[in-house]
Every structure is written in C-alpha cells, then in structure tokens.
C-alpha cells in the first residue's frame, strides 16, 4: 500500500504526465521554487517561471493549448485570477462554441484556494462557483491525494479548459510557506485523510464529473467538496451519536455536476445540506438547490457556506468557514423540519 501527501500526489501525477507527454508544460510565478523537483527534472523550458503578469501568461496558455501544447498554468492563489479572468471567461471558455466546435483549448489552470490559516479575505477565497458559472469551464476540487492525482491526469487529458483547485489546508507546502513558515506554535484544523492518504500503485485518470458517495445515511444528504468534505464526515460521526444518519457526497467536480448521484441520494433522504466553503449566494449551493427542484424533489434544504468577506482574525475566520458545529447545528435543524 502506497501513501502520499496531497501535494506529493499531484507532483507525482504531473511527473508521470510530463514524462509521458512532452506537450505538457508548466508555467506560472515562482514555479522554479514551487515545483522545484519538476523544474530540476524537466528544465526551464517545461517548467517556466513567469513575470507577475497573470493576464499575459494565462491568456498565453489558451493559445499555447490551441496550438498543440498541454499547459498547466499556475495562478498562485485563486483570488489573483481576478486580474486575468478575461482569458478564461471571454477566451478559453468560449472557444469551442465560437469556432463552431472546430477548436479547443486543452489547458489546466492550477490554483491554490481556501482558508483556515488566517490570511485574510483577499487570500482565502475559493471562487469555484464563480468560475463554474461561465459555460465552457470545468472545475475540479479534490479532497484527498488519490483524487488529486487522478483528477490532475484527467484535467490534463481533457480537451477543454479545466480549473484544478488545490486547497491550501490540504497541501503541506502551502501550510509550510504561508501559515507556519518555520513556526511550531500554531495549530490548523487540517483533515488528516485529506492531507495524506492511500494512492493507487499507478495513476489512472479519474473521470471529471463523478461525485463519490463517502457515507451512506438515511436522514439527510450532505453534499460537499474539498476540505469541507472532511468537516462533513466528522459532523456525520457526531450526528450519528445522537441517532441522526447523515450521508456524505464528495462532489469532486463542481462542473459538470454529477446531477444523478446528487438526486439519487436526496430522493432517498429528502433532505439536502450543502456544505460549501464558497460564497453562499449565486454559487454552487444555489445550483444544487435548483438541480433538486428541477428533478421534482421538494427536499428540505439548508446550506452552510461562507456568507461574507472572510475575516482575518482566526477566531472569526473559523466561524465564517464551514465547521463541524455549524454543520451539526444545521443538520439537526434540518432533520427536525
């Protein structure tokens, strides 16, 4: 049995993809340091540090992909994509339709995301619902090493633009660089099973768009992704103690959504609790409500999300992010409805 860290799994999958396919190239800020092993192995032409010019290099990734490469372009934190998002919204995402289906941009945008280490509201967003909103984008959000590696392979193989999001609490090197930074006196609520875990002997692509049922439960269905999946599992344990049986679905992919899996589960439990580290309104949680209603399931519904700009103060930050007590409380209310 092989185990890897979350970040290690991604690196390993990239190592395989880059060895197998010379068209796979990486670029982004500081990649010579952030991807030091890949840089050492594949050289500067394939792992190329950029200027702080996200619009230029994200835009360049689109046409590089159109012209035959398979770029994995890095936006250091997803928050920063706001300076360059035209390349996705108006170019990459629209290419296939614009060209009458004749041209595609097989590119991966890799970005860290998420909070829980006190970095403030401009550095801890997830924004996956925001990016999913534009037709033509795919968005994947792995919650553990095996999914991270497998989804990275699929993202690279996909013929269109895929946003691959890596939660900072799961990736040890981000915690090391941004949160601890050499200190040992701070604590973070890092989900163990997310940060390190079993991986397959050889990497196989995990299909984009397949959710995973992690826990069965008759009383309500929790739908979540990323770090929040682990919060849900913990909450489900607690709920079980008081006799509430909660199922947990890990979406893994924001778009395309695995509508079937979600509806099947909700049909059974008649209760949907969305636990999402993204903003509450006009985002993923709303879309899940719509999917359920469209399927004719008038389920009972609640959501535990981020409601406003994330506070810097770690105490208030912890309240703002989905956490186990908030989930338990929302679930308890939901089952009593």
């Amino acid at each position, binding site marked *: 049995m092989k185990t890897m860290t979350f970040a290690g799994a991604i690196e390993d999958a990239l190592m395989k993809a880059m060895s197998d396919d010379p068209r796979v*190239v990486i670029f982004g800020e500081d990649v010579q340091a952030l991807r030091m092993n890949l840089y050492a192995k594949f050289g500067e*032409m394939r792992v190329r540090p950029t*200027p702080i010019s996200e619009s230029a*290099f994200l835009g360049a990734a689109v046409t590089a992909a*159109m012209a035959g490469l398979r770029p994995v372009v890095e936006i250091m934190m997803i928050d920063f994509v706001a300076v360059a998002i035209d390349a996705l919204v108006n*170019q990459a995402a629209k*290419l296939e339709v*614009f060209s009458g*289906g*004749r041209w595609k941009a097989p590119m991966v945008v890799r970005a860290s995301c998420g909070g829980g280490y006190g970095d403030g509201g401009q550095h801890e967003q997830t924004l996956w619902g925001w990016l999913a909103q534009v037709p033509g984008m795919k968005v994947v959000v792995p919650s553990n090493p095996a999914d991270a590696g497998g989804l990275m392979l699929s993202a690279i193989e996909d013929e269109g633009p895929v946003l691959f999001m890596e939660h900072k609490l799961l990736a040890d090197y981000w915690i090391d660089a941004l949160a601890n930074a050499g200190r040992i006196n701070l604590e973070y609520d890092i989900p163990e099973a997310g940060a390190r875990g079993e991986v397959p002997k050889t990497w196989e692509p995990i299909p984009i768009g397949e959710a995973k049922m992690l826990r069965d439960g008759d009383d309500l269905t929790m739908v979540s992704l990323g770090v929040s999946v682990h919060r849900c599992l913990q909450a489900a344990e607690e709920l079980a103690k008081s006799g509430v049986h909660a199922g947990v679905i890990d979406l893994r992919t924001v778009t395309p959504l695995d509508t079937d899996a979600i509806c099947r589960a909700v049909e059974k439990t008649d209760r949907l609790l969305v636990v999402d580290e993204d903003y509450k309104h006009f985002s993923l949680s709303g879309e899940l409500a719509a999917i359920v209603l469209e399927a004719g399931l008038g389920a009972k519904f609640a959501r535990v999300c981020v409601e406003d700009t994330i506070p810097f103060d770690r105490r208030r930050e912890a309240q703002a992010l989905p956490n186990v007590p908030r989930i338990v409380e929302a679930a308890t209310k939901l089952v009593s409805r």
Partner: protein
Amino acid sequence: MQPNAEGLYRQMYKSRRFEEAVTQLWNDGHISAEMHLSKGEEAIVAGVLDHVMDGDALALDHRASAPMVMRGIDLALLLKEFMGLEGGLCRGMGGHIHLFSPEHLAASSGIVGATGPAACGFAIAAQHLRPDKVAVAFFGEGAMNQGMLMESINLAAAWSLPVIFVCKDNGTAVTTSSADVTAGDLLTRARGLGAHAVSVDGTDVDEVWSAARDAFVRAREGKGPMFLHATCVHPEGHFLGDPLLRMVRNPVRELRSKVGPLIKAATTGGSSLSERAVSLGSIAGMLGRARETQKHTRDDPIERQRQRLEISDAQRDELERAVDDEVQTAVAAALRGLEAQP
C-alpha cells in the same frame, strides 16, 4: 530582397474588394451588428502577411477580415460566417468579431488587447513544437493602454518569444483621440518593455514590408519580439455606420435630433462657461477628426501601390478582374447559402 509589388497589390486589392462586398451585404441587412473593416490598413496587413508561412500564427483583433483574406482563407467561408450561416468558417457561431481558423493558427478576439497574450501563447507553442515559426499580433494604438498587451510585450521579450507586435495606429479609438489619453510615446514604451521597436508609414506597403522582413528574420532566429508601429487612416471610421461619420456625411438628418438637447445642456447651468465652451470645442474637434478621415484618399494605401505597379494597364486590369471574379463568386455562394437557410 525586394517585395513583389504585384503580389502585394493583389492582396490589398482583394481585401478591399472583399470588404466592399461585405459593406454591401451589411447595408442590405444580411450581416448583423458591429462590422469593423480593415479598410485603410491593407498595406500594413499585406506587408506583414507576405512574410507569413505555414506554421506561423495570427492573433487578430476586431479588424480580422484583411488578415484572414490575405492569409488565404476561403472568402465564401468568411462571408457565410459574417452572415451567421451554418456553412460559415465557424458555423455561424462566432461571427465577424470572433473568427477562428485552426488550420491557419488564426484566432481573433473582440477584447481589446487580447491579441498580445494570444500571440505569446502561439509563440510559446512554436518554441516547443515548430522551431523558427512565429506569431503575429495585430492591434490598434488604443489597445496599447490595455495592461495585458503591455504585459505581453514584456513576456515576449523576457522569454525571447518569436512575436511580431503590429500596432496599427489610426490615432483614434472609437471616438477618442488617442493623443488625448495616451501619454509618453509608444516606441519608447515598447522599448521599455524590452522589444525592438520601429515605426513606419502604414500606408506604404514597401516600408511595412521591409520593416516586417527584419522583424520576421529576428523572430525566426530566436532574437525575440519586435514592435512594429504603422500609421494608417480608417476611412469608414470605427465600424460600418459609425455614428460620427453619419453625422459628418449626413449632418441634416443625423444631427437634427441631437443638436437641441446638446445646446440645451450646454446653455443651462452646469460647469463654468469656459469649461462648457471647452467641451463644445472638443465635440467639434471629434467631428472634425471624423471629417478628416474622409479626405485621406491621397493616403489610400491601395492607390499608392497601384501607382507603383510596373505592369501594363491591361495586365493590371486582368489582375483586378480575376480578383473581382473571386469575390463575386464568394458573394454568390454566400447568398445561395442564405437562401438555403431554413
């Protein structure tokens, strides 16, 4: 090496005839919404495109028809695309501001400045997959104030990317005089971003051709990007039916409804009298500039090149007739496509 005067003339003439056909179709209501012509830019496009070979890539802005025509893309495919037909270059899905031809590595975008990053990406792919192939970015002088374009020049220079940045400078962005909103100067700016930079008269195809030759040689040799600044005039204004040109061409009809409110606004309160006078002055200036573009036939790049041809009139007529036929055939095909539409 000297340019082939006839070949260049042929290209420019073809683009012009094609756009005249487009204008007709647009006037007839067969083409919807905004239609930005390359008219007036033909010498720039021809002088640059003459150096393009298979494997080179084109990043095109909202004036993509001349480059597409001169790159040899089927005229009927283009017209059908403009008309939104299933048989168009992009099956009618992209339209005239969003044209794509994968075979020619030619992609356009309606977002001002987006051709900078696009050309860089094509050039990155060339570095990996097509050594000594280059990418060309076309854009206007107004686009030089869009951050992503400036970022791209730096990126191309820092990475020695084979990009030729072609700035078609007509001095105007929609209705705004670029001199009023652009500080410094563009050549210095490009040099400060690390590009080799030259300026030419963009109505003289020979000048463009020679400067472009150097740019392509440098780029193919891996010496990095060049910024090629070329002046021009757009006799059709910003797009077909340009409101300013309508006012200039047909003042009685087009200004009637506008003058009353304007005078009222300018004479009843608001800022100081002198400030209001300045405003009226610049509105007049804007119309004056538009009027100016109508007088520039002496600068017409096609006329200029026509004068230079060293072939007989008969030969020239034949060349022109062949092009006319090609365009007419394409128009006929496009109109047939329209009729066949359910």
